[in-house]
């Protein structure tokens, strides 16, 4: 490949796809020199980097000591990548770091910002060192830049991926939590609804309920909305539709736990709740459901 003999700067290296960069394309002695320089000036460069970080007000969610500790590890793995050309360690470190700092509220721009700052700080130190010999400076930068860019890329991608993973996980958890359809007696289902109902969730709720009615052969369903703070026209209408659809499947719906606020809203906006069978609380709802199903709950004669 033509790349073997040190291609002119600025053309070959600007490829957006960094995954294909061949390792060790710079002469090894140049890389060794570069790494040695970064190792020698570790304390000074790290200080400079930290100064720039606090100057630009990045990572405000973390304490100075934490930033120092993380910066040290980032610096060392940075140099290590330059030396070995392997990214596995950095990738796993980036993932690990993201796992730790995402819950702290660190933003994407901050993570990318600090890595770019480190890149700049190191590049500046190279400029300073090889000022006199511009030919050598060029060759050093040839070795340094692609690796540095790829490091920035790796860290950013790792961070974003981790973030997406967390979001996906949370969405899944919410989806699973949000709609339990529970059988409390033969032919009696309870659907407790907690939290905010948006149209998508309302739809999913209805689907699960109708399917639950079919599979459990339910005759009565108690929908408890004690945990619902507010309800708008769309959701109220959806609730009415759910009640009607359940009836088409031969099940009676009892709605319980309407708060005074929701009751007032519904009356004010004029949603027709005439078709809905409502009871004050969940207990009353279950009792009425039992009556409808012909159950009679009698306390055993000797309470223990």
């Amino acid at each position, binding site marked *: 490949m033509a790349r073997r003999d040190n291609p002119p700067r600025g053309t070959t290296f600007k490829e957006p796809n960094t995954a294909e960069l061949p390792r060790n394309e710079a002469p090894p002695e140049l890389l060794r020199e570069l790494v040695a320089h970064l190792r020698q000036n570790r304390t000074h460069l790290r200080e400079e980097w930290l100064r720039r970080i606090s100057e630009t007000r990045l990572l405000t969610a973390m304490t100075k000591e934490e930033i120092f500790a993380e910066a040290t590890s980032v610096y060392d793995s940075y140099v290590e990548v330059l030396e070995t050309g392997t990214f596995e360690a950095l990738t796993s470190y980036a993932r690990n770091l993201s796992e730790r700092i995402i819950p702290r509220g660190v933003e994407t721009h901050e993570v990318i910002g600090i890595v770019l700052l480190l890149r700049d700080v190191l590049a500046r130190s190279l400029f300073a060192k090889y000022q006199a010999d511009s030919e050598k400076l060029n060759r050093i930068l040839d070795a340094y830049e692609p690796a540095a860019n790829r490091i920035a890329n790796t860290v950013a991608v790792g961070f974003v991926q981790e973030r997406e993973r967390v979001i996906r996980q949370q969405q899944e958890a919410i989806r699973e939590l949000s709609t339990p359809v529970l059988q409390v007696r033969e032919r009696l289902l309870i659907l407790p609804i907690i939290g905010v109902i948006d149209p998508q969730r309302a739809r999913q709720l*209805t*689907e699960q309920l*109708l*399917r639950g*009615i*079919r599979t459990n*052969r339910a*005759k009565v369903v108690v929908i408890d909305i004690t945990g619902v703070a507010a309800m708008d026209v769309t959701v109220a209408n959806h609730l009415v*539709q*759910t009640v*009607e*659809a*359940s*009836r*088409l*499947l*031969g*099940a009676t719906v009892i709605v319980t736990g309407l708060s005074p606020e929701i009751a007032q809203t519904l009356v004010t906006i004029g949603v027709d709740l005439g078709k809905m069978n409502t009871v004050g609380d969940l207990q009353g709802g279950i009792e009425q459901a039992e009556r409808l199903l012909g159950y009679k709950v009698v306390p055993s004669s000797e309470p223990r």
Partner: protein
Amino acid sequence: MEVPILKQGEFLIATIQAALSDADLEQLRMALVQRVVRYRSRAVIVDVTAMDVMDSFASRTLREIALMIRLRGAETVIVGIQPEVAFAMVQLGLTLEGVGTALDLEEGLAYLNQKFKTVN
């Protein structure tokens, strides 16, 4: 396709087995309304389990059947509406008001037996 209507004791059972054309639905309506008096039936069960689409005409016809049968002195129960169909119907505002419904044929029979037992 003509819908078969079976006599089962005091009830008539019409089982829809495929998608019906409008003409088929009209034919079903006439057949049920005539036979309910001819057989002195007390109730009619229409089983729609096989229908995976219910348009407004079908829905309206079912409701009309139920109301006509009431005028002829009997009761109607629609059984076997699929969950998806039920929700689609409700969204279109087709709620079969005033018509009895049950989960499936077995439930419909149980509902009617219960009802006529307590009446007598």
